[in-house]
């Protein structure tokens, strides 16, 4: 898994990236009550705001971690946003995307670097 400084994780699944937020981010957010997902087919650039997560107190964004195209979104989160708190690095992934510039992946942190980043 790769990690961003925005507390997202990326997992390679047959060349596509599955993207979610880290356990650390989910704890900071508190109880998630609403998730607004992007549309499949949206072409995104790194750092575009593509997902809105609302917790009890505030709204926050998830940024596109790399350039690419959204290929699938996790509709389960629409009806069950609390899953983000229960299983942020498992079932509660947000979207899958293709990567148009693989070199951008090399700039991301590995698990050890991320743990150091949040320590």
């Amino acid at each position, binding site marked *: 898994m790769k990690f961003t400084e925005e507390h997202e994780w990326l997992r390679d699944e047959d060349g596509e990236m599955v993207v979610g937020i880290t356990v650390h981010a989910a704890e900071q957010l*508190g*109880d998630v*009550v*609403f998730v*607004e997902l992007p549309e499949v087919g949206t072409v995104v650039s790194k750092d575009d705001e593509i997902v*809105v997560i*609302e917790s*009890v*107190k505030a*709204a926050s964004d998830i940024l596109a971690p790399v350039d690419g195209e959204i290929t699938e979104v996790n509709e389960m989160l*629409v009806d069950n*946003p609390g899953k983000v708190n229960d299983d942020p690095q498992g079932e509660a992934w947000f979207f899958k995307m293709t990567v148009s510039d693989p070199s951008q992946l090399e700039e991301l942190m590995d698990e050890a670097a991320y743990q150091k980043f949040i320590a």
Partner: protein
Amino acid sequence: MSDDLHTPLYDLHVELGAKMVPFAGYAMPVQYPMGVMGEHNHTRSAAGLFDVSHMGQVTLSGASWEAVAQAFETLVPQDVLGLGDGRQRYGFFTNDAGGIEDDLMFARRGDDLLVVVNAACKGADIARMRAALEPAVTVTELDDRALIAVQGPGAEAAVAGLDTRAARMRFMDVADLELDGVAVWASRSGYTGEDGYEISVAATEAEALVRRLLAQDGVAPIGLGARDSLRLEAGLCLYGHDIDTTTTPAEGGLMWAVQKVRRAGGDRAGGFPGAGTALVTPARKRVGLLPEGRAPMREGVAIYADETATDPVGHVTSGGFGPTVGGPVAMGYVSVDQASVGTALWGEVRGKRMPVQVAALPFVPANFKR
């Protein structure tokens, strides 16, 4: 945060694992490890204990009850003179334009008036009272007392467990109690829509009392996060958001808190700042707003009459997720012709118009002990 003031319960909050945030000049607990949603639900189903010591406690005393009450009526549109001994009322300071300078609770304790005001406004409130009332009335800030709220269906058992007299108090009664040997002033009130008490205690005894209350069945510490969602579901105004110096009591839907005797035609009508405008039928009104779907509509969201209208008919003043309602809830101002319950409107969230309906307040029925 180092410049923020501490309440007498600061060390206990930290010990209990609270996340502390700056609020109105104080370091206050926004949530404990239970989390905002858990704390909200706990208060609705059992009992929540809140530190509200940042609020201002002030006593007004003078030659007689009549002298104090009549003096206070020059600052508020409430019936103060008619307040019975041991009773409390909700009120507000108005300004010359009829706007609300602060909202407050006032209680009669013998010949004295105990006034509780918001933390952010207390300096201005005390200056206002001193300028208008002294020297005939003595204004004393009680900065050596803490204030604790115990709220929820389990509040009576928890407080009456320490002094059985607490169970005999009715909504908005005030009384002197002795909670496990600690002398306190208690009122049967709060700001969550639940039955409960607000307890004023000497700062030096606050921590011991809170530990004793937390040891009672079902009592858990609750932070500002859940306090906000509870009061929003209860349809209660947050000063500086739902009401402020630019909103009148009539616009704020607070005419229920202006007794007949102080209204036009009443025996003691007028005589407070902005009396000519504060109570006049307004062009806009505070309403409950129930967004369709799951997206919360927060403070600042513009409200439109239809999906394509260019000019808003109002805006949200506080909104978020209501854990008891199980969905988004909001309050805001809309023009009076759009203010009837059931009116279909649109709120613009992140550039998208979403349907929202004018709804009756409160969103969650009050659970007061009448």
